[in-house]
């Protein structure tokens, strides 16, 4: 299978790079002459590997495109497999920072991994760019060394709720998402904006993380005119199948992971008509996206999704930041400020910049799943520009509220 070969090559290249990095003697960084060390914390074993493998593909694609150089400076890329658990993440970030002396870290994948290392990263003043949605990292407990070029967990759900209320004219929605922080934050964000636009959440369902059969929950979906789901990983696949098998036909809206482009080949017809809102969309018509998608399809024979695009963009941000800093990244505090001042006009996700807490302000795309030439694709139906993590709310008022949780916002009785 061609797919296998290209991944093997990539793995071999990565392994070679890692081996080379591991046997290096630590040299004092002599400004531009020494390569810029870029570390990646990702998950390549276990259930989270799906997103993790794509994350690495995204970074490698960017580096390949730029000939392994950010501006004039060569880039040394070191990838670390955290195993998807916090202790492993802690170990690997120590490896990257203490042994490999990286200049910037991309990743990690999951919110709980990020929370495990946030203090460490701040202590060691290492700039970090991650896709993990844990809201308080850029809200109530901000880390000055952190940037998020993708979205907070709720950032994609705010426009989705707006769309659901105004365009789909939904009035009563049941939310269903996994019983953990990413689920709470997504659904909380949806609920807040949906109810502010005249809608009402009639029920909130929280299946545990490991739920092979969602039917007991799907059976509770009734008395509504729409469903909002926030599943991640491979769960959206199972959910949509079981949802359709239960004969339910309410329109389904979801966020960045529930309708990920990378899952489109796996979805069946049960996903037709599902709306999702994501900071990335495959059919975005910009030069950089066309290049990115072509490169991914050529190298990995796969359509990129949220994870690959997110890391590609993150690498682009580091590149731009490094060039803006004149190739110098030794003054970590200054480098982080430069990174946060990066303002890119052409990325695979459109124009992006960062707010003062390190979170992205950019475009969010609402797509609908349609069948084109016998294949399922996400077709962009609306683009929201300049979306920040606070939506249209005043920042202070937003932060005065508690973080979204299982019971916040509460269900209106």
């Amino acid at each position, binding site marked *: 299978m061609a797919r296998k070969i290209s991944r093997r090559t990539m*793995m071999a290249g*990565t*392994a070679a790079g*890692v*081996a080379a990095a*591991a046997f290096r003697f*630590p040299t004092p960084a002599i400004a531009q002459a020494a390569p810029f060390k870029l570390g990646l914390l990702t998950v*390549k*074993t*276990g259930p989270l590997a799906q997103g993790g493998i794509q994350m690495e593909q995204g970074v490698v694609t960017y580096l390949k495109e730029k000939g392994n150089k950010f501006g004039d400076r060569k880039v040394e890329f070191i990838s*670390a*497999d955290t*195993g998807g*658990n*916090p*202790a*492993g993440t*802690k*170990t*690997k970030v*120590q*490896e990257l920072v*203490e*042994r490999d002396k990286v200049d910037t870290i991309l990743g990690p994948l999951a*919110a*709980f991994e990020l*929370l*495990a*290392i*946030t*203090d*460490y990263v701040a202590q060691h003043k290492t700039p970090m760019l991650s896709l993990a949605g*844990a809201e308080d990292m850029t809200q109530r407990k901000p880390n000055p060394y952190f940037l998020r070029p993708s979205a907070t967990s709720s950032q994609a759900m705010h426009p989705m709720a707006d769309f659901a209320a105004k365009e789909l004219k939904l009035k009563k929605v049941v939310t269903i998402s996994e*019983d*953990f*922080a990413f689920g709470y934050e997504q659904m909380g964000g949806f609920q807040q904006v949906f109810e502010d636009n005249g809608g009402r959440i009639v029920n909130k369902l929280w299946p*545990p*993380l490991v739920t092979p059969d969602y039917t007991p929950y799907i059976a509770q979906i009734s008395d509504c005119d729409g469903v909002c789901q926030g599943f991640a990983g491979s769960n959206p696949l199972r959910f949509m199948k079981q949802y359709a098998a239960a004969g339910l036909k309410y329109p389904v809206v979801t966020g960045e992971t529930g309708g990920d482009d990378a899952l489109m080949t796996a979805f069946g017809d049960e996903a037709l008509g599902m709306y999702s809102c994501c900071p990335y969309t495959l059919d975005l018509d910009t030069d950089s996206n066309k290049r990115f998608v072509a490169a991914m399809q050529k190298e990995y024979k796969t359509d990129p999704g949220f994870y690959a695009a997110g890391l590609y963009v993150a690498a682009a941000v580091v590149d731009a930041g490094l060039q803006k800093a004149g190739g110098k990244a030794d003054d970590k505090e200054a480098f982080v400020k430069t990174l946060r001042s990066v303002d890119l006009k052409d990325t695979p996700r459109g124009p992006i910049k960062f707010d003062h807490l390190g979170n992205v302000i950019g475009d969010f795309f609402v797509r609908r799943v349609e069948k084109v030439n016998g294949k399922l694709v996400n077709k962009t139906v609306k683009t929201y520009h300049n979306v920040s993590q606070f939506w249209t709310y005043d920042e202070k008022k937003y932060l005065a509220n508690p973080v979204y*949780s*299982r019971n916040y916002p509460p269900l209106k009785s």
Partner: protein
Amino acid sequence: MNARIISLVIAFLLLATVPLWAPGVYYVNVASQVLIYAVFALGLNILAGYGGLVSLGHAGLFGISCYATGYLLQAGFGHSFAIIGALVTGVAATAVFAVLSLRSTGIGFIMITLALGQILWGLAYRWISLTGGDNGINVKGRPEPFGYSLADVNHFYFATLVVFLIAIAMVAIFARSPLGAALMGTRDQPRRMNALGYHVLAIRFWACLFSGLLTACAGILFVYYTQFISPQTLSLTSSAEVLLMVISGGAGTLLGPVVGAALVVIVKTVVSGFIERWNFLLGAIFVAIVILMPEGLVPGSARLWRLATRRRAQKPAAAPEAKP
């Protein structure tokens, strides 16, 4: 006999001087991790190895002391109080564990401990007000006994080493003590022990508490090392991992769990940096151990060493007793 003492002394010297010869701060941290898991494995070995009671829920007990430490620190208590509180909580939880699970043996015991471990894992996720749910609890800072700050990597390593040495000494004394012998008796011949007048259940109960004490120590060290605790630490995978450390190293031996812990930790942390498919490699190592040394690495190596040093071609001595 002399060879044994010499090798023990060499091992001790090597361990005591890790910060001097390790190729970097990162590797001192790896050494700390090895020792922490070694204490954990030593704790499980009391039950599984010496007692013949395989537990698949020990990560739950481990996690309880982690959470107790984190919770108490977060509530504003000092390190000493948090550590003592965590030890007490851990041992108390072990007592409950023991009362519930010691009603069965064999597969029943495995299943009850599995169920208990899973229930604790579920609690860690759902009792958000206590545990923070999957966001976990961040632990800030490390203790500074008498001004010796454990925030320094080398200092923390030495503290861990001290705990490890105490733990292994305790286990060594236990194994040679009447209680230890009685425990191994209940493992090998429970009915006969009963007939001889030993209170099998009580022996197992005390062994369980001892196991819980060591596990709690390991948990406290762990949470101070990673400075974070979340429900993943209590998962079935974690319980399986520490069990694998005990079995692969040699259940029922003193050094087996230590070697097993070193194997797993080094593959997970160091080897995973060089070999992408390290999970596969780890599994393959376990399978190889079963093929070549089903009794575990430590007893197996001892056996192969004896075979190798035998000059005359005679049939190998009877397999070593008392170590299943």
